[in-house]
């Protein structure tokens, strides 16, 4: 970084006015007897956006803090952040090279779709059982492991589709059995303080699954072959092509470059997402699931069995994690420990999106994917940037918990 001071001062400026806005605004709104539920969060982002220029009018006029106002403020903050970064480090790849920026953005979105799919499973479980599954990362890991061993060791040459289906079946089955034995008794009042029990028992499952897998396989990293290599293609067939495909990569406009494994994984995730939405909104069982998540008793009255919906939701959530693992095993190298950072990322996403909100989980996945891509691309020291990948999510989580613990689409806590 050349002029790190510029960036540092900009950051301090944002933090100072944000903190001031967050602390003072609710007091002013309370004194004027106005609604203060959004005042702290709104004051913080508006203060961070334009500092005294926006805070003084806000405190004088005290308008109703709408989500549009907050959205504009957030956009300005992000803008200031980017401009400050660009001024501070003009030679950085992600300032100087437009193509690199677009590629990073595309890669961020592509990977964000898969993060979203995984978090969707977690939020599905939460919205119906009221339980955060701490074994979610292990289902992700097992999904990848099954896919790898099917395609590479057990039945070499088998279609990846079969392997992915097998990983779905395995994770679904583990989720099913676990729910029936360990989580079903929670509903009947047999277990005191079910939330605490659920945290611990799913954590125990994670512990068990991780070391069980490690004992069966080994601690050597594995990585699956590309599932569906691209055909070699250039459109139009001349230099400066609009679309250029090699088996491992696709390039559009000579600028946006997405590696094949990520691309296929994202396509798989989108297909799965479409199937999931169709299931949740167009089938009877899906509607029953959503009904249970809205109101258990009312759903039971209409003839839905909430217990079997619990089982279904947990196994489906596990399966979604397994599926994202299965599609990512060709992208990252795979170890029995690979689930922990993935699970931590899913936790960030569901808190960011709002616990139990399906669109929130998907949007949260995209945001986290983009932030990670920006972080790895823009931080000057490349090895350090890669080491801190889990940290970007934690920064988001900390900000969300500080400013708006209900998340983007959260229900009231």
């Amino acid at each position, binding site marked *: 970084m050349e002029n790190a001071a510029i960036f540092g001062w900009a950051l301090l400026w944002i933090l100072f006015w944000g903190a001031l806005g967050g602390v003072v605004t609710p007091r002013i709104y309370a004194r004027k007897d106005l609604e203060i539920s959004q005042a702290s969060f709104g004051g913080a982002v508006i203060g961070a956006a334009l500092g005294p220029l926006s805070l003084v009018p806000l405190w004088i006029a005290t308008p109703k803090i709408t989500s549009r106002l907050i959205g504009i403020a957030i956009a300005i903050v992000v803008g200031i952040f980017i401009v400050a970064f660009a001024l501070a480090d003009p030679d950085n790849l992600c300032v100087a090279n437009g193509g690199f920026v677009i590629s990073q953005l595309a890669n961020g979105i592509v990977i964000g779709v898969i993060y979203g799919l995984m978090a969707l499973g977690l939020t599905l479980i939460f919205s119906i059982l009221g339980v955060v599954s701490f074994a979610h990362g292990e289902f992700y890991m097992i999904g990848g492991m099954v896919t790898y061993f099917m395609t590479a060791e057990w039945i070499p040459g088998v279609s990846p589709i079969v392997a992915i289906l097998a990983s779905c079946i395995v994770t679904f089955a583990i989720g099913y059995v676990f729910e029936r034995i360990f989580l079903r008794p929670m509903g009947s009042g047999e277990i005191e303080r079910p939330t*605490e029990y659920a*945290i*611990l028992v799913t954590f125990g499952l994670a*512990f068990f699954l991780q070391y069980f897998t490690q004992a069966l396989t080994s601690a050597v990293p594995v990585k699956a072959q590309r599932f569906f290599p691209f055909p070699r293609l250039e459109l139009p067939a001349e230099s400066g092509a609009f679309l250029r495909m090699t088996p491992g990569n696709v390039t559009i406009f000579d600028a946006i470059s997405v590696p094949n494994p990520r691309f296929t994984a994202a396509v798989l995730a989108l297909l799965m997402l479409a199937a999931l939405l169709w299931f949740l909104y167009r089938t009877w069982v899906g509607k029953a699931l959503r009904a249970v998540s809205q109101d258990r008793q009312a759903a039971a009255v209409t003839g839905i069995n909430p217990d079997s919906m619990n089982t279904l939701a947990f196994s489906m959530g596990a399966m979604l994690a397994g599926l994202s693992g299965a599609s990512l095993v060709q992208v990252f190298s795979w170890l029995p420990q690979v689930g922990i950072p993935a699970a931590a990322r899913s936790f960030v996403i569901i808190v960011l999106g709002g616990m139990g909100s399906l669109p929130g989980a998907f949007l949260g996945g995209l945001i986290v994917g983009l932030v990670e891509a920006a972080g790895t691309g823009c931080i000057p020291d490349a090895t350090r940037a890669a080491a801190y990948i*889990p940290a970007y999510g934690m920064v988001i989580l900390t900000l969300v918990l500080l400013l708006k613990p209900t998340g983007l689409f959260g229900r009231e806590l």
Partner: protein
Amino acid sequence: MNPTALYRVSGTVALIILFLIPLASSEMGGLGSLVLSSYFMHLAITAFFYAILASSWSLLAGYAGQFSFGHMAFMAIGGYTSGLIGKFIRFTTAPSELCTDVPLLGNWWLVILNIRRVGTIDESCLDMAKAETLPAGTLIVFPPVWASIAMGLVMGAVFGLLVGWLVLRLRSTYLALFTIGFSEILRAAISAEIPITEGQSGLELVPLFPGGIAGFTSTSKIPPYYAMLLLFIFAMALMTWLAGSRFGLFIRAIREDEEAAAALGVNIVRYKVLVFVITSTLAAAAGALQGHYIGIITPNTLIILQMSLVIAMAVIGGLENIYTASVGAIIITFLLELLRTSVSIGPIHIDMTLWRLVFFGILLMLTLRFQRNGLLFPILERISRGGVAAETVSIRAQSDEELDEELEELSEEDEELPEEASEPASGTDTSAS
């Protein structure tokens, strides 16, 4: 014998045995035919270390109902703080002028050594200063071990306060979510900042008693044994006192029902943060002491496996009692070592270093599901409360009979409202059973 007296007697006996164990170690020549190897002494120290962690975690999770998966992170904060102070800070009687100098009282200077650049083997700036700028006869003093451990405690408390203040305003699930991320990010940071923390190769710490103590050398196991035992006893005493005080009542009230506790005037956030800070500080203390005893600390101490083990110890021993949790930790530490030897049955080689963890994972889940209070608690209860239970049953039966009689009388008196009388009667039945 009444149960409290039984606890006191057995506790005193256990303490005496724990204090006498070093006499039987090989260093002291053993007691008759009983000679404990230094490996056993090492295991005992490790067992106390885990016992402090498991019991303080049980105070947090079992008493207050706050599930932190970052306990090992606080342990590591304690160890790394103490180690980094030992690595980077010196006291001198003259400014070095090559390192960062901070003037202190009198003639003393606090010298912060330079951070080694990546890929170089720098000579420490103090070594260069010794050759060039420092006048002859300058004293260079290492920070005392106790002071760096104390700083480890302070850092543990500060981080505990920050994390607690951020997350404990929310429901307990958020603490669990956040602390997993917190320990992951801490591990990533420690692994990545190689110039400061040495990354995966581990940060070296000076021995607990660098010059030896009371005739023992610095590598002897006996002084660390007593140090860890004393910390363990101190931690247990502190937590026993806390659990029995108003504070203990408040945190248990918070566990049972936060809203109700708040409605009764308990400042729930303050007490949750307080218990979090206290248990995190205890974890940091254990980490700093263990770090100095082992002599090296690596980021692998805060992988999730270590956290899972502490949880398994607390849960299998008995989560809702600090004593059963600590005894569980001691038993499981030794069990883990016993189960270490791999076995080969014919062609199948079973790597026990992994399968024992699988076994404890299953045991953890089954304990939670079928024996929530842990495997030790029922034994304890049977020994101490065998008579009490029978007595309670008979008292209850008696009072039920009296109640029934009274109710019958009531219903006879008041025949117009027989339903009201029968309702409380059925209520007492269920509560008595």
